[in-house]
């Protein structure tokens, strides 16, 4: 068996001595005793130094005493030049001082003459071994350092990526606007992740738009946008972005090559534009949520010459995952918000019903456009001329809250019209509340004729009554909110208002101002409302809103409703109402109040009432057809005479139906002087008669 000799590189030793005999003898002795060793010799320190500068010897052996530069001086220079090379010095017999100096000067060992060859070889072998170990140690040290710096770089890279994702997440959670979110993401990606970034968003109708185009160089961004303007996103093109949108598969192209681009197919204008701006590498990721592709983000590199890797793809996919989630959330939120808003807006009266003899005004201030609260108010006419007023507040926000509000509102109206008392109405509403739901409300029945209110309050802030002279009082009393107790008992309260009083109903948002107690709020409302109780109601509610909230409303929606019965002028009457049948009870109620104020006797009052209502019924039936229109009633009362006019702005058609003529005949019987004046712009019925002087 032949054993291949191990390939061992020979180790080179330098021997420096001015003694030719020694230079001859020592190498031979070493060759004999050591394997793989070559010895070079030098007869002077100066020459030796030249060699040492050129060759990295395993070890150096030098005589200490030499003409010119001696061994100690040479040692010093070797230490400077080759600090790791072990150096042995040869000293004369008994030259202990020199030996000590040599060791202090950094020599590995000293060899005394006459040279003990065994010792010399042993020392030299140790020196070379030590040298070897040192070298290995250094190498390991280097490897470790290299490794450490690799690790460091990786850590830095990951930190940057995490930082990027963290920044992105901040943007994603900051906005509920999908488009704004995608724009910010594109801005964030350049230049940290890409030299160009384009974002695409699929709308709910399936249309896809480029939402943002960003380039690290503003001038090039302008150019990029201009070029892309000509090519709106084309979902059926071979464009890589369109492909990713269709397939939902991310695309990584580390190196955009001519062949790859050619292989795509027709209509890749967008990619061509990107390539004219020097793009070299790209990643396109889909924005996927709940199995649907909501859009696409394209990252491209150019100037940076960066080539995307799988690591970059992983980072970008993570970013896309988060962005898609945020957009999906934003859309769901937006959808819900829109439903809630539509629902709530549809529940608030578009405009308050115009009730003759009553002035009313309402305001609704939403705390934020994003979230829709559960405040609502209502105002409706009840049979027999009374008026129902409601102010309510369902706890929470969103669609569920708006839905409960809708339920309460319609149930309340239904029970109210059926003639239930306030306590009965509220008691029934309490049954509609599901566990976990809560609502406050106050329901009042206001009788303008007697200026009395009957009301039931379920945990709602108390209504405020303000007299024309500035006196004001809260209508206290009530029970817990709907939903607070399992078996609540609601009772009715009543109050006699001062003549001409203004009633103010509101939600807690008005009196709960940040940093102030509710009592402060109530006191402020009291002061503000009493300051000028006579002013026009619209001005009053605006002023009260401003003064009570001090222009800094809290976090809650505010609803405010004001109502005031006008004190009738006994000499004059005027109302204008929609020409619909439901205006008639309202008209009768107002006419009765006026005639009462004018001290008309019952018979007169009834006859005038019938005459006016007959005239109005004719307008309702004949003046406008299916179109909307108004009817106006004016009256003048003197001591002996009453004069009424009823007019419209329609075009009468010939009367039809069985009732024809009977109404007008009745009017003529009741009023003595009646003239009907038809004009192109409407008809006026003028009625006049004397008053009976004897009160029956």
């Amino acid at each position, binding site marked *: 068996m032949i054993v291949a000799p191990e390939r061992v590189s020979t180790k080179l030793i330098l021997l420096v001595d001015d003694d030719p005999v020694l230079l001859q003898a020592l190498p031979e002795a070493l060759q004999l005793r050591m394997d793989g060793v070559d010895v070079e010799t030098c007869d002077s320190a100066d020459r030796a130094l030249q060699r040492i500068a050129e060759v990295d010897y395993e070890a150096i052996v030098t005589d200490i005493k030499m003409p010119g530069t001696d061994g100690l001086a040479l040692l010093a220079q070797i230490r400077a030049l080759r600090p790791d090379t072990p150096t042995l010095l040869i000293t004369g017999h008994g030259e202990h001082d020199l030996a000590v100096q040599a060791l202090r000067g950094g020599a590995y060992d000293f060899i005394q003459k006459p040279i003990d060859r065994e010792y010399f070889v042993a020392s030299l072998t140790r020196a070379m071994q030590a040298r070897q170990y040192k070298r290995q140690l250094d190498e390991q040290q280097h490897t470790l350092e290299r490794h450490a710096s690799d690790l460091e770089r990786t850590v830095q890279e990951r930190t940057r990526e995490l930082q990027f994702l963290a920044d992105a997440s901040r943007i994603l959670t900051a906005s509920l606007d999908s488009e704004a979110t995608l724009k910010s993401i594109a801005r964030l990606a350049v230049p940290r992740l890409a030299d160009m970034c384009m974002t695409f968003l699929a709308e709910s109708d399936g249309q896809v738009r480029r939402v943002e185009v960003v380039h690290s160089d503003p001038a090039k961004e302008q150019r990029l946008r201009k070029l892309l303007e000509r090519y709106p996103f084309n979902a059926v093109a071979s464009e890589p972005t369109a492909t990713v949108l269709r397939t939902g598969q991310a695309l990584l192209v580390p190196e955009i090559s001519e062949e790859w681009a050619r292989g795509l197919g027709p209509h890749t204008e967008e990619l061509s534009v990107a390539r004219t701006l020097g793009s070299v590498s790209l990643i396109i990721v889909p924005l996927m949520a709940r199995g649907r592709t909501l859009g696409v983000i394209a990252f491209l590199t150019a100037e940076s010459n960066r080539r995307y890797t799988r690591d970059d793809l992983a980072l970008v996919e993570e970013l896309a995952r988060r962005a898609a989630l945020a957009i999906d959330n934003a859309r769901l939120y937006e959808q819900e918000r829109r439903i809630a808003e539509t629902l709530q807006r549809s529940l608030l009266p578009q405009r308050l019903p115009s009730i003759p003899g009553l002035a009313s005004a309402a305001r609704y201030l939403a705390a934020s456009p994003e979230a829709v609260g559960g405040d609502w108010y209502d105002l*409706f*006419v*009840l*049979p*027999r001329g009374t008026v129902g007023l409601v102010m309510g507040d369902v706890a929470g926000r969103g669609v569920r809250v708006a839905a409960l509000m809708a339920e309460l509102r319609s149930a309340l109206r239904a029970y109210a*019209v059926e003639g239930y008392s306030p306590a009965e109405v509220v008691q029934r509403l309490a049954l509609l509340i599901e566990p976990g739901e809560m609502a406050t409300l106050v329901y009042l029945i206001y009788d303008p004729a007697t200026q009395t209110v009957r009301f039931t309050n379920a945990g709602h802030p108390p209504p405020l009554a303000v007299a024309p002279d500035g006196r004001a009082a809260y209508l206290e009393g009530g029970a817990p909110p709907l939903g607070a107790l399992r078996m609540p008992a609601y009772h009715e309260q009543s109050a006699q208002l001062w003549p001409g009083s203004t009633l103010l109903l509101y939600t807690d948002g008005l009196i709960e101002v940040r940093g102030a107690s509710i009592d402060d709020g109530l006191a402020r409302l009291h002061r503000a409302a009493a300051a000028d109780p006579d002013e026009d109601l619209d001005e009053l509610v605006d002023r009260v809103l401003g003064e009570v909230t001090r222009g800094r409303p809290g976090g809650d929606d505010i609803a405010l409703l004001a109502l005031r019965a006008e004190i009738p002028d006994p000499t004059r009457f005027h109302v204008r109402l929609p020409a619909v*049948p*439901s205006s*008639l*009870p309202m008209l*009768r109620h107002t006419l009765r109040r006026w005639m009462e104020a004018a001290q008309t006797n*019952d*018979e007169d009052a*009834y*006859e005038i*009432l*019938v005459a006016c*209502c*007959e005239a109005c*019924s004719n307008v*309702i*039936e004949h003046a406008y057809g299916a179109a909307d229109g108004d009817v106006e009633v004016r009256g003048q009362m003197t001591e002996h005479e009453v004069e009424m006019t009823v007019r419209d702005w329609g075009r009468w058609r010939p009367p039809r139906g*069985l*009732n024809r003529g*009977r*109404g007008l*005949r*009745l009017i003529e*019987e*009741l009023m003595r002087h009646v003239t009907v004046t038809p004009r192109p712009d409407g008809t006026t019925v003028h009625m006049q008669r004397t008053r009976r002087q004897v009160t029956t």
Partner: protein
Amino acid sequence: MIVTAMVKVIERSGVPVAAPEGEIDLANVADCRAQLIAVVPNTAPGLVVDLSQTTYLDSRGVHLILEMAERLRTSQQRLALVVPERSVIRRVLLLTQVDKTVPMCRTLDEALQQFRS
């Protein structure tokens, strides 16, 4: 607002008595008419409409009463009205000569007498 006419119905000596409460006008006359027609069985001798709780009535109400009278006449039945002496609506009924077609009684008993003869 829709005002539903409240028509209370009782029966006296086999005669249905319908008493509309409140006001009868254009807004609720159709509703009122439907209720009145529904309370007269074919077997009844007729109908008493008690207007003592009616606080307002104009030509629409008059027309309704005349129409009811016509319908009942066709079916060989009769109609009588109760209108108290001091009722505010009395004058309208007199002015429109309803009393010429339909017996107008001051009390319910008087009205029921109409069906005994």
